[in-house]
Every structure is written in structure tokens, then in C-alpha cells.
């Protein structure tokens, strides 16, 4: 079941100039939210913004009835959202899309930049099943891996940075523990990173899920604007994804 409803901002945290998170509270019990699902967020009072902004759900607290969004400021809409403060209202259409399947006994979660967002809720979901995932986060430098301190309780945390300011220097696929006998990989981040991770997984015969990001209008599979070219034709990222199995995206991965 999907809902359209107002939340109240009850928390805000920022990482540098680019990333911030909002904690949003609802007066009623939240519906189940699968890791990898997203919300279509209304941007109010911004004359240059017409459409909602699709933002993945970063964290869910079923005790406090809160959701968290981790947002990268990329344009007018997200810049406007960055001005929200505690007490402000925010209208969401949620939970949308198909999330991660929670497969594997030894999962590896690979995130880059804003793509780390859905991996927190994902890591918590694995932990709730008694599985502690390995979480590999990458970025150009330490300050471009947002919210990383939040992951520590929910897995074995590894980092790579381009400049070596945190963890190992290099790309996520070059990390010394990247190929450590995992039986499932979940990845979300920049397209070249996800392609490299998925290519590796396909070559090694490891199952792999990717969380894609495309420009969207409706977020619910009505407008068909956000399509990805899968091996069997165009598929809606908003409804059939955003999480896709790598096996159906081999053409996209090998582009």
C-alpha cells in the first residue's frame, strides 16, 4: 500500500555543503518500508520546481514512527529541501518501488556518494535477520562519504577514497577485501561504480542487485519517463525498480 501524507521534520544533520539528512516523524504507525524503497518528496514554494523529487529512504524507526532521508544537493529542488528546519512539514508519497530482496548469508553492500543512503536501512534489515553485512563505502575523499558513522553498528565497515583520506586509496572494486567470498552484492551509487561492481559480480557468478536512479515524474509507474533499457526492453525504474537484479541488466551494465 502506498500513501500520500504529511510528515514533520524532527531532525536535521548536514555533512559539508553537499549532503544533509532529514528525520521525519508521522503521528501514526508507519507502513512496512522495504530497504531500497523511496519517497516522492514535495518541494513547496519553489517556483522553478514543478515535480516531486524521488529520494531513497535512508532509515526507518518503527518505535518513533520516523523516516530519514539522506539528500545530496544537486539542483533547485534539493537546494530548497535543504532549507527545511525542525517543525516544518513535508509531504511524501511513499513507500514506492521494489526494494532489495535481502538475499545471501554473506552479503556485501557497496555504496558511493549519495548512494550510501538506502544501504543503512538495508544493513539494519540484514542485522534483524541475524546477518551482519560487510559495508564498503567509497567516495572521492572522506568528507564525500556522508553519514558513514551511522553504519558502524550494523556491519563490518570498509572504505575507499580516491585521495586516500579514508580507508584504502582507489576505487571500491580495488579494495583488498572486495573479493572475500561474499555470496550476494547490493550496490547503489554513481553509474560507473555500479557497473564495475555488477560486472565483477556477474563474472564471479555472485548474485547482485543494483539500485538505479533516473529522473522521474510520477514515481508510481504511470508516466513511463524514468525507464532503463533492460535486456528485455524498457522498464520503469520507479515501479519495476529502483532495485534490479544484475542478470536482467547485462546490456546496461556492459555499456
Amino acid at each position, binding site marked *: *500500500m*502506498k*500513501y*500520500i501524507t504529511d510528515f514533520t521534520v524532527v531532525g536535521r544533520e548536514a555533512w559539508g555543503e553537499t549532503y544533509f539528512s532529514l528525520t521525519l516523524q508521522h503521528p501514526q504507525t508507519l507502513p512496512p518500508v522495504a530497504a531500497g524503497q523511496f519517497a516522492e518528496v*514535495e518541494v513547496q514554494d519553489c*517556483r*522553478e*520546481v*514543478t*515535480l*516531486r523529487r524521488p529520494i531513497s529512504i535512508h532509515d526507518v524507526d518503527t518505535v518513533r514512527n520516523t523516516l530519514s532521508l539522506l539528500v545530496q544537493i544537486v539542483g533547485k529542488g534539493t537546494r530548497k529541501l535543504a532549507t527545511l528546519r525542525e517543525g516544518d512539514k513535508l509531504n511524501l*508519497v511513499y513507500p514506492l518501488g521494489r526494494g532489495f530482496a535481502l538475499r545471501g548469508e554473506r552479503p556485501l553492500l557497496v555504496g558511493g556518494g549519495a548512494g550510501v543512503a538506502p544501504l543503512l536501512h538495508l544493513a539494519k534489515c540484514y542485522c534483524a535477520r541475524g546477518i551482519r553485512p560487510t559495508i564498503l563505502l567509497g567516495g572521492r575523499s572522506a568528507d564525500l562519504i556522508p553519514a558513514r558513522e551511522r553504519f558502524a553498528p550494523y556491519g563490518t565497515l570498509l572504505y575507499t577514497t580516491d585521495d586516500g583520506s579514508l580507508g584504502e586509496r582507489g576505487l571500491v572494486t580495488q579494495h583488498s577485501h572486495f573479493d572475500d567470498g561474499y555470496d550476494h552484492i547490493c550496490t547503489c551509487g554513481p553509474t560507473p561504480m555500479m557497473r564495475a561492481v555488477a560486472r565483477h559480480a556477474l563474472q564471479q557468478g555472485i548474485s547482485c542487485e543494483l539500485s538505479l536512479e*533516473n*529522473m*522521474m*515524474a*510520477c*514515481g*508510481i*509507474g*504511470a*508516466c*513511463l*519517463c*524514468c*525507464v*532503463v*533499457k533492460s535486456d528485455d*526492453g*524498457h522498464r520503469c525504474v520507479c*515501479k519495476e525498480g529502483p532495485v534490479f537484479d544484475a542478470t536482467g541488466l547485462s546490456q546496461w551494465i556492459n555499456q
Partner: protein
Amino acid sequence: MQPQLATQIHNLHLKNPVMTASGTFGYGEEFADFIDLGRLGGIVVKGTTGERRQGNDYPRMAETPAGMLNAVGLQNVGVATFCDEVYPRIKDTDTHIIVNVSGSSIEEYCAVAGRINELERIPAIELNISCPNVKKGGMGFGTKPDMAAQVVQAVRKVYGKTLIVKLTPNVTDIVEIARAVEQAGADSVSLINTVLGMAVDVERRRPMLSTVTGGLSGPCVKPLAVRMVWQVAHAVSIPVIGLGGIATAADALEFLMAGARAVEVGTANFIDPTATVKIIDGLEDYCVRHHIDDINDIIGII
């Protein structure tokens, strides 16, 4: 007393004038979590062609001030899959399900319309001779009066129920096209389809859409649409369905007063999936506030 919101489009009795625009409401199912579909006057489902179509490459959408461009290009499952798989799922929806029929040739339009004619629970089609996003056919049929008349005449022969023809605004004189399709046997016209537009990403120095141009929709096109509805409503005697940027009850009322017998809500569904029912409630409130017993009393008053 409850105001009367029911209107009539040819043989279609609508419980209220608010329908959904093709390509913005899927097959209705996508919105069932948010609204009671039975409250709608009608649902015009996704444009359907003879064969399955993949549509255009991504990116297909660009946000613009008070609107958006799209270049989906009629991605759809094709008429056979629609009839076999989609129709059984949606046929019992408690409102009129209208199929938007698209094609690249007169033969294709006729084949699709003939096939839809057999579906008992589909009381009408909307003939799309106005899609700006396909290379062949589409808008090509809707920009010349003789071509428009030819396709409508041909479809009229194979389609016996209510035939609505959707018109493009990308013409010098929309009245001329409306008159031509009325003469050719259309039972109603709906207007406007999207306005051909373009946007450029100046940082990347590239068009925003893979197709370069696309169809503009949303509040930014509303004044243009109201003007065209008013012109056409005064020129033809068949009922006019108005659409183009309707997001509120006041927007819908503009079209009704300009002469539309019903309206379609499009892009607003993307921003607020409950927009249609808010508009219906708003029409009722307006009638109560202005002591209007029957909404037909204000249709075409301008």
C-alpha cells in the same frame, strides 16, 4: 441539496466531468492506493498501438517552469496484450474506461479500434492523432484537415461506440481540424494534446531529451488550452473535452465555462495522485457556494 455534477459526452453518461488524461494515469491501477477510482467521471488509459512499442530512449522527461516536457513515444504493451492481460484486470473498475488509440498508419488505427470495439466494457475510444513524440503518424494525421478526416472516416467504419478524437495544438488553426473531424464522423473532440517544445542543458550543451523535442504539459499550457477549447466549442456542435494544465477545481471550471462538457486531468496526477478527487470535491463546493444546482448550467457560458 447536492449539486448535480453529471454530464454527457455523446452516449457516455459521466457521473462528473473529471476524467484522466491518457499517458498520465497508467491503467488506473497505479492510483488505486490513493483514490477511489469509482469517483472519477472516466479514465483514459495509456495510448495503445497495434504492436508492443518500446518508446524513445531515456532521457524522456525534462522539468520546465510550471510544466514538463515528455518524449515517451507511445511505449505500450500493444493491443493484443492490452485485450488479453490488461483489460480483464481493469474492466470492472466502477467508471468508464476509455482507450486512447494510436498508430502510424490508417490501417493500424483501424486494426486497434476494431479490436477495442469488441471489448464490452470499453464504451469509447480516444483517437490520438496528435502525439508529437513518434516519427511516423501520430501528429502527422492531426495537423492537416484532410488527413485528420481520412483517418476518422476510416475508424468510424470499424468502430461503432463513442469516438472521441484528440487534437493537437501544434497547428495554425485548430478549429479547421475540429470541423474536419466532426464532418468525418467524430462524436466528440478532446483538446489539447501536448505543445511541441524543447529544452537545453546549457552545462552539458546538449538537448534535455533524447529526441531533442518533446511535448510540453502542465499549468504553463493552460491559457493556450482554454483559448483553443473556447474557439472549438463555438465552432462545432459535438461535445468538447478540455485538457491542458488542469490542477485545481478552478482550472477545471475555466475549461467548463469556456465550453468543455468534460475535462481530463494529466500532469497534475504526477504531482498529487489525489488531484482528481480534490477537483471533483472542489467542483461540488463551487456549485454549493454559487447556488448552482446543475453543473451543466455553467458549461459554455462564455
